[in-house]
């Protein structure tokens, strides 16, 4: 098989740093026991590594109380735990048209059941939400503002610090979907006024699929909807009230979390600024090359700074799925096509229902790969 060029980092990052593979291999061989469920050395060893990773993850997002980090399956899981654990009958929620289905669907589900109401705030053509409109959207019933940090379609990066400030002033819980940003954009839950931070472990944090996390701030009390074994307070009839046990019923993905820890260590060693800079330089280069190409229509924020390494486009005369299949089949380029689980964004863009071709770049992508991809596209449009 020819070498693959992986441009699908917004779905999950690949490859992972070698240290992640090694850590997971070592962990499952040495510490494959169930953490916190027994006193034997393997269980204790497993728990130590999980708690170290919890601590490390908390520090990464400037979280003071590390037990407020809950390990989850992925960002969708985190968003569901947050949204469904928080909202009560009669609550009002403010969100945007840029959301992924992992926010839109839990909200729409609650709307359909008549439990909540939702207001979606518009965004500008370059993908930034209208802060004035946001300000006006609050009602006395507004309990939650939930916003995607980086758009997984057009790449725009929302000013979460400002939004968090507005939210805090209004006395509303602020939840950030950091699916595309955790690991590449610095996030400080204190400074950014974030109450709930949902993040995947397997994207820019370099953990394996099946890992994610949720930060639960002190202003928030979530109802657990997954109850069960916690390893503590087993005599109690109900789920323990203490975090993280309250929201972490059942055996967690220990080997994945160990890998996530190694991923975060990698970022800390390389430096998040260096990672960000590499991705931005490459994205800029990709956009330059794409814009020179005939028959290519780019759907992008256009902003050079407030953005992430995700670029959407279409090729005249071909559907996105066809372009993706040719790139994969004839050139070995892996990318994502379609709606990217963000139908509202595509409706606004006018690219619904076929969607777009999306190149999402990561730290391990190179200029040579971008050149190869552009060369391939040139042949396809010829």
């Amino acid at each position, binding site marked *: 098989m020819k070498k693959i060029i992986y441009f699908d980092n917004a779905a999950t990052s690949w490859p992972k740093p070698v240290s992640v593979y090694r850590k997971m291999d070592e962990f499952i061989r040495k510490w494959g026991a169930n953490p916190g469920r027994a006193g034997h050395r393997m269980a204790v060893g497993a728990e130590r590594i999980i708690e170290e990773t919890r601590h490390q993850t908390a520090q990464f997002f400037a979280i003071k109380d590390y037990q407020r980090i809950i390990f989850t399956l992925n960002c969708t899981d985190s968003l569901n735990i947050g949204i469904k654990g928080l909202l009560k009958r009669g609550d009002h929620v403010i969100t945007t048209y840029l959301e992924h289905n992992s926010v839109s669907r839990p909200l729409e589900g609650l709307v359909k059941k008549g439990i909540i109401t939702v207001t979606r705030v518009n965004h500008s053509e370059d993908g930034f939400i209208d802060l004035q409109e946001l300000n006006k959207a609050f009602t006395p019933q507004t309990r939650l503002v939930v916003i995607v940090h980086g758009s997984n379609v057009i790449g725009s990066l929302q000013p979460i610090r400002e939004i968090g400030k507005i939210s805090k002033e209004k006395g509303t819980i602020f939840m950030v979907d950091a699916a595309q940003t955790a690991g590449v954009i610095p996030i400080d839950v204190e400074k950014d006024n974030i109450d709930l931070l949902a993040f995947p472990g397997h994207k820019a944090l370099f953990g394996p699929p099946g890992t994610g996390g949720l930060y639960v701030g002190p202003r928030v009390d979530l109802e657990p909807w997954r109850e069960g074994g916690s390893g503590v307070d087993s005599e109690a009839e109900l789920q323990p009230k203490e975090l993280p046990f309250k929201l972490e019923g059942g055996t967690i993905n220990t080997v994945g979390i160990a890998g996530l820890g190694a991923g975060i260590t990698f970022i800390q060693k390389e430096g998040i600024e260096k990672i960000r800079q590499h991705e931005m330089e490459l994205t800029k280069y990709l956009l330059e090359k794409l814009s020179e190409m005939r028959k290519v229509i780019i759907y992008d924020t256009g902003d050079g700074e407030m953005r992430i390494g995700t670029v959407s486009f279409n090729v005249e005369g071909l*559907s*996105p*799925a*066809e372009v993706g*299949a*040719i790139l994969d*089949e*004839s050139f070995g380029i892996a990318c994502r*096509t*379609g*709606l*990217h*689980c963000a139908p509202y964004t595509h409706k606004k863009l006018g690219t619904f*229902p*076929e*969607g777009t071709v999306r190149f999402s770049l990561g730290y391990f992508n190179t200029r040579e790969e971008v050149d190869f991809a552009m060369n391939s596209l040139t*042949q*396809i449009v010829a």
Partner: protein
Amino acid sequence: MQANLNRYSRQILFSEIGEEGQKKLRDSKVVLAGCGALGTVIANNLVRAGIGELKIIDRDFVELNNLQRQILFDEEDVKRNIPKAIAAVEKLKKINSQVKLEAVVADVNFTNVEAVVEGAKLLVDGTDNFEVRFLLNDACVKADIPWIYGSCVGSYGLTMNIIPGKTPCFRCLFETAPLPGMAPTCDTAGVINPIVNIIAAIETAEAIKYLTGKFEALNKDLITIDIWEGSFEKFNIADRRDKFDCPCCKQRKFEFLEAKQGSSITSLCGRNAVQITQKSIGRVDFQELAERLKKSGEVTFNKYLLKFSIDQYEISLFLDSRAIIKGTNDFSVARGLYAKYIGT
């Protein structure tokens, strides 16, 4: 219920069957996979002959162009746009109310094929593609259920019996499917009804022999017939099983059942499109396929993809034989279109 055997008097008079054979037929459950040209003829014959139970599985709906050869359907069925399995059972009930009939409207695939063949004394093939036959072969060999293979295209047809452990199996003869797009299908090369009737009649005869316990009378060869050229041939295949280390019946590796071979199908993010990917990769010859398809619909191709429009559907086929089928979200419809026009 004791079925009335009088209606079968002419068949009972045939000494090779007799009353004993008729009773054996009555106690038999047969599964018919595919209820199109071959399938309707076989179902008609078997139900009239008085088998006890027939399960018919088919994913398609009756269309006007079926009536030329699919004998259980009529114009009313086309108007009602009903599934073939249902239409067939309705008709067969009127023909012989003593037979227990079951219609299953579904695509046969690796997730359900074992349940489809379960409990059958015999399976008869009325399908239209290689992949499903490999699946049926895996399931039947694994469960030790004999099956009768039959297929037709143009004026040509072939059939053979597969008795697990005794005769070569389907994979002993066809190790892999032909490359997608490289073999003619009834929807690209056409088919005339006499060859359908002949192959289906042979399949029925073999079924009756097997079900009545006349194993020594069973055909042991691969029979091929071209009714236009007038060629009738029998190929001795008895030694195939000894000469070939068959992955299925010798090594008992059921690669199609375990989805290690065959195609996989996914719904594409976006409206109304499905992608079918083949596990074993070969290169499609667009030129040759386009030549075949141009009689059925609009076809264009370049270096990277071939586009074919038929009715409300559009098939984009890529070099590694993956296809994006637009105009449906229904996996059965997509698989059906792939089998009919690309073929495997």
